[in-house]
């Protein structure tokens, strides 16, 4: 079982808005004097600063990876967007007009795609991820968007920190803040949004918060989740109404009724229960589910999420997202960039 927590436990700053308090406390140590003047970064349109093209981009922090048709597209640190047309063997860096950390990417087909990131930026591509343009940004938020979903070429939703929910109905030309559609008084972070098969949209977030919508995001219902800790992601299985939600410390829950009731799925690693946070997942063509997370965790299910086999990569790097390479292998992204792995998550053997 989980090992006893020894030593000290301090109150977790649930979100950055509460950090000010903690900062004051920490400044008693004398190291930092708080500057009180909040200088909002200017919103005026400066000439676009493009991400630096670098051979090291593929080795830097990468956060999300998806398919645009057959092409793989990954996003990450410093405005790096990479694409690969050979199942992840080689990657090309796209032309991207930002240097901010990008947190999620979504493609509706092999051409149309959107990416979100810090400074509440939304970027769009119409050529399968080769070039990008900024559609939206909001520096005053001082907060990132964390996930994005599109129904079709025109209607999409993005979620983010402090309960941000914004919507477009014109393919991203204009975006509207619709956060008040959610019953989220504490402004918990919204970490992920996904469409569940034959059901609707599902959002998970900080402190176990869950919301669902059956009308493509017009109205939302708040759910009492099974878990107090933060959930980092949600994914539909191949079965109708069936989904997985996952988060801190190896917590993985399964629902077969669009989130009305939940059951915890036990993840057992070599040395006891998996203790690492889970951050990304994918549904493979054969219905298998792969969830990845910190500590090099790769957990795989072949029974729609009822049971999982757990593998921890020896390199123990933190993984953020996973997708199919297209040839049976997996593409893993996270610390140390993009890498191709065997279906178990293990490193490919060198030829």
């Amino acid at each position, binding site marked *: 079982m989980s090992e006893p927590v020894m030593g000290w436990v301090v109150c977790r700053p649930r979100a950055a808005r509460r950090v000010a308090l903690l900062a004051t406390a920490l400044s008693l140590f004398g*190291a930092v004097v708080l500057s009180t003047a909040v200088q909002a970064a200017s919103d005026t349109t400066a000439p676009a600063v493009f991400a630096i093209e670098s051979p090291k981009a593929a080795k830097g922090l990468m956060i999300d990876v998806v398919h645009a048709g057959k092409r793989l597209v990954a996003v990450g640190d410093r405005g790096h967007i990479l694409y690969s047309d050979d199942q992840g063997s080689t990657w090309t860096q796209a032309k991207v007009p930002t240097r901010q950390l990008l947190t999620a990417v979504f493609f509706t087909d092999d051409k149309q795609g959107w990416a979100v990131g810090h400074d509440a930026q939304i970027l769009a591509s119409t050529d399968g991820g080769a070039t990008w343009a900024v559609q939206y940004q909001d520096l005053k938020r001082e907060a990132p968007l964390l996930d994005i979903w599109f129904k079709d070429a025109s209607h999409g939703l993005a979620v983010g920190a402090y309960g941000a929910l914004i919507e477009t109905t014109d393919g991203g030309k204009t975006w509207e803040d619709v956060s008040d559609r959610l019953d989220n008084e504490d402004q918990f972070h919204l970490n992920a949004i996904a469409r569940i098969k034959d059901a609707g949209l599902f959002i998970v977030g900080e402190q176990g918060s869950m919301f669902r919508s059956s009308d493509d995001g017009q109205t939302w219902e708040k759910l009492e989740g099974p878990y107090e800790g933060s959930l980092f992601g949600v994914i539909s299985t191949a079965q109708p109404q069936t989904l997985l939600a996952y988060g801190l410390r190896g917590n993985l829950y399964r629902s077969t009724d669009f989130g009305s009731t939940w059951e915890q799925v036990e993840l057992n690693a070599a*040395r006891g229960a998996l203790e690492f946070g889970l951050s990304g997942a994918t549904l493979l063509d054969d219905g298998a589910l792969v969830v990845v997370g910190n500590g090099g965790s790769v957990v795989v299910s072949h029974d729609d999420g009822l049971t999982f086999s757990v593998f921890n990569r020896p390199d123990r790097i933190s993984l*953020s997202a996973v997708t199919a390479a297209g040839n049976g292998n997996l593409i893993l992204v*996270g610390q140390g960039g993009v890498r191709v792995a065997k279906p178990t998550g293990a490193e490919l053997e060198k030829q």
Partner: protein
Amino acid sequence: MSSHHNDKATFLERLIFNNRPAVIVICLLVSIFLFWQATLIRPSTSFEKMIPLKHPFIEKMMEHRNDLANLGNTVRISVEAKDGDIFTKEYMETLRQINDEVFYISGVDRSGLKSLWSPSVRWTEVTEEGFAGGEVIPQSYNGSPQSLDQLRNNVLKSGQVGRLVANDFKSSIVDIPLLEAYPDPQDQGKLLALDYQKFSHELEDKIRTKFQEQNPNVQIHIVGFAKKVGDLIDGLIMVVLFFGVAFVITLVLLLWFTNCLRSTIAVLSTTLVAVVWQLGLMHFFGFGLDPYSMLVPFLIFAIGISHGVQKINGIALQSSEADNALTAARRTFRQLFLPGMIAILADAVGFITLLIIDIGVIRELAIGASIGVAVIVFTNLILLPVAISYAGISARAIARSKKDANREHPFWRLLSNFASPKVAPISIALALVAFGGGLWYSQNLKIGDLDQGAPELRPDSRYNKDNNFIISNYSTSSDVLVVMVKTKAEGCSRYEAMAPIDQLMWKMQNTEGVQSAISLVTVSKQMIKGMNEGNLKWETLSRNPDVLNNSIARADGLYNNNCSLAPVLVFLNDHKAETLDRAVHAVQDFARENNKDGLEFILAAGNAGIEAATNEVIKESELIILILVYLCVATMCMITFRSWAATLCIVLPLVLTSVLGNALMAFMGIGVKVATLPVVALGVGIGVDYGIYIYSRLESFLRAGLPLQEAYYQTLKSTGKAVLFTGLCLAIGVCTWIFSAIKFQADMGLMLTFMLLWNMFGALWLLPALARFLIKPEKLAGQKGNSLFAH
């Protein structure tokens, strides 16, 4: 052959030889005083003397020294488990004992001491309730398999892998910050300065030897500035041994050469007097002995011996004609004082040109060596003939020199062919080929230190092996370039400063030769991620000033007290000149684009920053030194011989030596650096002696009307042996350094040995060949000439 001296005594000669007792007494008194001074001289290794203080990089580093203080002086002990990994009861017990032992060594900053056993080394993790954490080795640890298992888990969660614990879990580190000055245990009010040598020995005895004996399964590796300096001082002391070796070899050679114990002792003791005077004067003028000036006594010894040999050779030759020792000594003095003075002046001029290099140790070397050669004027040009005038030379030696003067010498006869019209063109052609080849090959010559690790020590020294062990097993590099980022007070944590720092770090990481870069931004991103439950999506700078302020709270040492200076540490693959150049240029480009009011990117600190500055100074000085030293030497020759031809005959062989010396350095993989730059000046300065001695004789024989080849034969017969011997003496004096534990001393020894031997060879081989083309013997014959040697 003794035809060309006259018997008119100069004023100087009368002054000295009419007051011989006074000369002896004065020298004795001065020697006593300076011997006392010399005994007070101490090894000193000042960091500041080894770096170009006037270089802008170094000026900036010194300006911000206090703000960078805690980047500084630490020693790291890596304890390796030879079998298995660190998670065994025995290993952890040894580690605990080492940790405790280190705690009580004087000079250790106990509050900062860090190992797996330190309570300050903790693990943290994010739980539903918040951050959880604890000591990596909890109170409940008892060495049982369960607690070792728990330890392994804690280590993984502590983020210390690659820092305190090796990447392969086969070793861990005890990190020891040092205090430059610490309270005296006897008297708490008094501060003692850290004695690097003593500290280094304590680490050897109390840690390495003791624990490797106690637990045969551990191997101990120690690195850090203090350890390196300790090893350097130990290496210095070994040099004294080399002096003994050089002394004994010289003694044997001298006996063989002079065949006379009395004159051997006279030469050795007057030369030792010169060394004592030089050391005494160094101390008198307030200098210490550093690893560079340590070599001056060797040089002085060698130069002194070589002049002494010329004197003894002269006196022996004169003795065969003169009635007594005094007359022989007086005649020799008359004959050799002037060429001796000229040669010594040439040496001094060579040394003095080194003063233009803005690096303390080189300047002290120049001053020390100049004082030394000045001293030789008194000891070997004045005291030695006076001493010999009392002691005389053994009858056997005189008899031999008489016999030598008359018999035919097949060896010298053979060598005199270098001046023949048939051999000379071949020699010149060969020399041209060698010159061209040398010039071509020396294009490969690099600036700076080329070896891995601590360049001061040998690549296979224990320190460098330890260093390699740590570099290859931990995520660190020993070559660090520090960029100082200066902001307004409290400005270093603002987004406007941190975002550009982040950009700089990425630019550097994309520069060839850079491994990684860290700064407060690195810590900030990790903290922001940590505050957001370890979610990678937050691993970036926030625009929120409170979040940023909070995030750097634990970035100790990565910003100064008032948050106006933040260092960016750039770790490099190596310290080759190209690597440093690329990194420095990348920073300079970035600074040009991004410097603005309240945000400045300043170069440089860190060992790589210092080396980059040193390389720049050396690159600038290299050509200037070469031009200056040749200009000076050529001027000296012009003044002495009043002849272009003579000057060319003497200087051109030296030029060939310099070119071949550069090629040799390129071939041996020795870079142009603080240690090898002076060699050029020293080599040329000392090398010109041979040319002056040989040419002055050759000229006098030509004036006597001999044809060139015969004149050269006579020259060789009279001074050839002395020149050959001089070359050997000098080479022996410096070649013992090749065995020094200190790498740069070995490099200097190798290069000087080569240059001194090759200069001798060049003077014997090339000078007559050049003379064949440049000098018209029929013009000189019978002329009185206008050189200084023409009386």
